[in-house]
Structures are given as structure tokens and as C-alpha cells.
């Protein structure tokens, strides 16, 4: 692990590891715990080496009980610590849902700000890695819909480092959703000088004129690939990476869509009442008179996550995104659209 090399090519898992390591070093109130995060280093190795470097007191395995992990974090945070906890997989955070929704999200408010809970709950989420059932849920909307929680999801290793540092430094609870399938994607990452945008700000990952693709987490690379493919068809797509779902960066998203006049929202989760619905609703509320077409959504289907052999049919891919872009009514005669574009 390369926490000590400030600029290096890192995988997202390594960047997260570096962020935890640096946070543990800088602030002795930071504690890391969860299932298998100790000697094993976590099933995705995000906590690799931390127990060795910081000892069992700072990074430790808990008994196997997620409400217990979150509840323990609540008590420790009330007592002045800054727990950074891991839920092993998305669906295994559900046993802690009451602790998260009824306590983590609410304690500051319940006590008029006399108590605060600087807790980070790390959740590897979403699919695309051939995982079996219960290991691939996209659960971000449950948290985003719960007032009192910030919800963050990086799409690059550099963002992973800085968003996690920001989350740990935040005075309030942060649900930190880690897109599993990006754990191994490598990138030039700086742990010394902040390159990433600040907490709460979206990032324009690619500039474009004709339409805006809004994405987050695992869907950002899909959006970028779609934009690349569209460029070859002569369409210039802007790609906005939300980075933080709560708080939501209306400013960046609205500015983009007002300029492009068209918008496709991409979300891996099942569509119904997901974060993508919120984005679509907000965008049309705020950009109605700039819109040349409805805001379209590209999402997973409203089905339980498929078995590995079928997940590619479910996951929004470049083609599904491009199909949606095709439906953005770039032409008065949509049937001729293909011809028009091919000609251009």
C-alpha cells in the first residue's frame, strides 16, 4: 500500500486504504472497525495493514452483527471518537437500518446540536463483479432519502481518497458508498495536494454541448464511455459526476443542463424512486424552459439484482445510454435522426 507516496498510480481500494491510514495517523480519535477489517484487511483489502500499523485498539474486528457495529459507533462517537466503520456488503447493512435511520441520522437534531455523530459508514455497493445474491445491491437511495445523512460515492481513486478524508473530517454522519467494481481501477492519485473538487461539489468529467449525462459512482465510467462513443457520432455530451448525492450540487447540474438543453440521468440501481428520479425531478423543475426534451433516465430494472450470468442484461451499459441519448429529440423527424447523424 502506498499511503506514503503522495502521487502515484493507485487503485480505488488503495486510495481508500491510504485515506484511512492518513486519517488514523493524523487524528487519534479515528477508529476503524467492522467485520474482518483487522488482520484480514477486509474482504476487499481496503483496511489492509491498518491493524498492523495502528494496533488492535485503532483498527479491530467486531463480532458479527451490523446493528452492533453501527450502535457501537454511535456510543463511541458520543464519547468523543470518530468511528469509520465498514459494512461488508450493501445488503449486509440492512440489519443496521434502524440504528442508521433512527439514531445515526437523527442524534444531532434530537439533541439540538448538543451531540453530534462524526461517523463514516463505508459500504461497498452495486454490482458488476459477478457477485451472488445479496452482494450487489444498490442501496444509496435508502440513505439519500433519510434526512440527516450525507451520502457520498466516488468514481475515481483520487476522489476516493479526498472524499473519504473529507467524510472523516465531517462533523456529521456520512454514508460512504464504494462502487465495488471500481475498486481495482487504477489512476494517478494525489494524496498530498487536493485535486478533487470539494465536498458537496459535483465534477464535470467531460465537457460537451449537446446534452448532459448525470451519473455517480459505478455509472460514471459508463457515462464517459458513452460520451466517447457519441463523440464519434458527432454528438458532444457533457458528463457530470455527482460525487456527493447529499448534499446535492444543483448549481453544477443546472448550469450544465441549461446550457445543453438535454439531460440523461444514469443510475445502476433499480429505477423506481431512486436517486435518478430525484435528479430528473430537480432538473426539470429548475431547467424546464431550457429543456428541448424530457429528462430521461437510464437505470437498472425494477428487479432483484440478477444472478451473475445475467447481470450484464440488467446493468446500464453504453448502448442503453446511447439509446436514451437517441431519444432526446435532436431532430424534428426522429425517424430520420440516424441518417442525419450519420451524414454529419
Amino acid at each position, binding site marked *: 500500500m502506498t499511503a506514503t507516496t503522495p502521487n502515484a498510480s493507485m487503485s480505488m481500494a488503495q486510495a481508500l486504504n491510504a485515506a484511512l491510514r492518513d486519517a488514523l495517523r493524523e487524528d487519534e480519535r479515528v477508529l476503524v472497525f467492522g467485520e474482518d477489517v483487522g488482520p484480514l484487511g477486509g474482504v476487499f483489502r481496503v483496511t489492509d495493514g491498518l491493524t498492523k500499523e495502528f494496533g488492535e485498539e485503532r483498527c479491530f474486528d467486531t463480532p458479527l452483527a451490523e*446493528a452492533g457495529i453501527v450502535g457501537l459507533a454511535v456510543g463511541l462517537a458520543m464519547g468523543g471518537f470518530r468511528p469509520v466503520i465498514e459494512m461488508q456488503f450493501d445488503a449486509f447493512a440492512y440489519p443496521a437500518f434502524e440504528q442508521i435511520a433512527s439514531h445515526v441520522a437523527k442524534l444531532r437534531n434530537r439533541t439540538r446540536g448538543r451531540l453530534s455523530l462524526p461517523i463514516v459508514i463505508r459500504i461497498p455497493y452495486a454490482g458488476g463483479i459477478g457477485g451472488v445474491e445479496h452482494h450487489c445491491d444498490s442501496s444509496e437511495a435508502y440513505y439519500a432519502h433519510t434526512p440527516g445523512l450525507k451520502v457520498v460515492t466516488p468514481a475515481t481513486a483520487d476522489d476516493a481518497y479526498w472524499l473519504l478524508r473529507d467524510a472523516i473530517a465531517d462533523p*456529521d454522519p456520512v454514508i460512504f458508498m464504494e462502487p465495488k467494481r471500481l475498486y481495482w481501477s487504477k489512476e494517478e492519485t494525489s494524496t498530498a495536494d487536493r485535486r478533487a473538487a470539494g465536498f458537496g461539489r459535483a465534477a464535470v468529467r467531460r465537457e460537451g454541448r449537446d446534452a448532459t449525462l448525470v451519473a455517480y459512482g459505478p455509472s460514471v465510467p459508463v457515462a464517459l464511455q458513452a460520451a466517447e462513443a457519441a463523440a464519434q457520432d458527432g454528438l458532444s455530451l457533457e458528463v457530470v459526476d455527482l460525487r456527493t448525492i447529499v448534499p446535492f450540487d444543483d448549481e453544477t447540474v443546472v448550469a450544465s443542463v441549461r446550457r445543453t438543453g438535454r439531460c440523461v440521468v444514469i443510475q445502476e440501481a433499480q429505477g423506481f424512486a431512486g436517486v435518478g428520479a430525484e435528479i430528473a425531478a430537480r432538473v426539470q423543475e429548475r431547467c424546464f424552459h431550457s429543456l428541448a426534451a424530457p429528462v430521461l433516465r437510464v437505470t437498472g430494472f425494477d428487479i432483484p439484482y440478477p444472478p451473475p450470468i445475467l447481470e450484464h442484461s440488467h446493468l446500464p451499459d453504453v448502448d442503453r445510454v446511447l439509446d436514451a441519448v437517441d431519444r432526446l429529440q435532436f431532430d424534428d423527424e426522429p425517424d430520420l435522426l440516424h441518417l442525419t447523424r450519420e451524414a454529419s
Partner: protein
Amino acid sequence: MSVRRSPRTVEGLLPSPEPVRFVAEDGTAVEPPAGYAEPTGEHLMEAYRRMVLGRRFDRQATALTKQGRLAVYPSSRGQEACQIAGVLALREDDWLFPTYRDSVALVSRGLDPVEVLTLLRGGWHCGYDPAATRVAPQCTPLATQTIHAVGMADALRRKGEDGVVMAFIGDGGTSEGDFHEALNYAAVLRAPVVFLVQNNKYAISVPLAKQSAAPALAYKGIGYGIPSEQVDGNDLVAVLSVLDAAVAHARTGGGPFLVEAHTYRMDPHTNADDPTRYRESQEVEQWESADPLARLETYLRGRGLLGAEDVAAAHKAAEEYAARLRDAMNADPEADPFELFDHVFAEPTPQLNEQRALLASELTARED
């Protein structure tokens, strides 16, 4: 205590076969099991005064519901020995994690009764300062607070403080998964936490027999390696003795301790409840004779510790306390609608600021 308890052996973990008792229902002394010390007379006199005050507070709170000054009140009547012994066993720098049922414990710990009743009168969620009082917000989602208590106990240990945490929970609450997780975490972390189960025989309408088939709830301890005890929860002397020992056990590095206090909820679940639907009034009457306050009073008189003037003084203080509370509760609680946005996060999000502005425009429009 330390003699009886050798954790990790079966005998060291099981509770006494019968609830520990120092005082019989008629107020006479009985022989307690070996290893338990009787609290000092001074300690017991203090407990008596708090019992009188606590009972008076409780009566006043129930009265306030009838006058519409309190939306809802879950009464502690009958459970004062548990709650007051719990508070007396703690130092000021120890922490308490109470439930909605434990208002008497809170006022007994010296919290402002109006602040305590803020939740139940609807003024805000938690009316007192948990950090200053070392009392967690009264908890409604059952059993969830027991895990927080473990976390706080671990925090105290980490900071090198010798504080102890006490978590209250009801018989019904012990059925929740969170209680199990809390006991297990406490045991594995050897956290300095005492769990006090106030087994008042009902969870709203559900009697103990439908809640558990255990010989006693205290037998849950051994399954986690936690030493446990059961006690007559209406015998203040016994509860205080057992809790003193449990707290000492936790404070001196012995790890967690589980105490089940057998008591009874004399009043309805809350003022909104109708217990005639699920229990006989005879049952309640039988428990009248086990009243913890009368029992303590008889016992202390019998031991010559309590005189008529002490009784009068305690009641006078309690009446004054109740009168002050009544007056204070006569005023409507203040409420600023914009506070709704103040504590969601340390800094409001842009979205919350927009929503605050929307509310402001609505309120201005209404004024017009």
C-alpha cells in the same frame, strides 16, 4: 461480589436461583444471599427522599396529561426502587442510557424536570443536555440504546476514565435483536457497562409469559459470558446492593454485568393505554402490597433510621417540587419553526437553506 463471580465458569455467571432480597414485602429484614452488602443508612435515607420525590413527580406528570399539558406520559409508578437505585449506584461522571419509561430516574439524577418532559410535551425531542448531564436522550426505539451504552463504555475505557455506563431496558425490550448484540459486544469488549432490566411484567399489553420462556431474564447473561443477577425490584435495599456490586464489578475491570429487577408497572403503559383490555385489576391490587416506597419506609422506620419529621420533610420537599413543576408547565413551550433546519447538519445544505426560505415565505404570507 468478586468472590461469587468468577467469570468464564458456569457458576460464576448464573444468577441466584431466587431474586435477591433484603426486605420482605411487610418491611421486615430477610437474610440476603452471601456476598451482598447492605447499603449504608445514609445511602438508604437519601434513596428514601428521592423515592418520595420521584413518586410525587410521577403523579404530577400523570396529572399534567389530564390537564392537556403533557401529550403522553409513561409512568414509573411501582418501578421507583429500580430507577432510583440505578441512579444512586452511579457517580456523577458515569453515564446513564435510559428509556422513555425512566423519567423518575432522570429527575432523581437532578435533571430539570421541565427539560426531562420536553419530549413528552412535544416541545423538542430531547430537552436536556446529554453531554452536560451524562444522560443519553431517553430512547424510544427499543433496545437500541443498549448498544450505544456499550460504545460509550468502551469510549470511557479508551480515554482512561474509570466511569461506568448503566443502560436501562424493559422486559419487552430484551426480545429485540439489539439487546443480544449489545450483550455480546459488551462481553467481547469487556466494556464497563451494567444492564438493568426492569422486568415490569408487561410490554404494553403483552405479559411476560408471551415474551419469554426463560426461567428468568437474568439467565440470558451466561450465553454471553456475562455474570448476572436477579433481584426483587421493589426492594430498594436489594436493588441498590446488587447494583452497587455490579457497578463496582464493571468499574474495576470486571467487564459487563446484567441485572434483572422483578417489578411491576402499576399504571397503564401510558395515559393513552387501556389496561382493562389485558389485565385484571386484582393483579394490580396484589402488587400494591409490594409497593417499593411503603416497603422502604417501613423498613427504615423499623431500623430507627427514619422519623416522622423525616417523612414530613421529604413530602414537603416533594410537594414544593411538584408545585414548581406545575407552574413551569403552565406556560406553553416555545418553538421556533426555523430551528427545524438548524440541527439536521452542523452546516445546512443548500437544499435545506432553500426549504428554510420556502417556510419563511409561507410564514410571511400567513402574517399578511
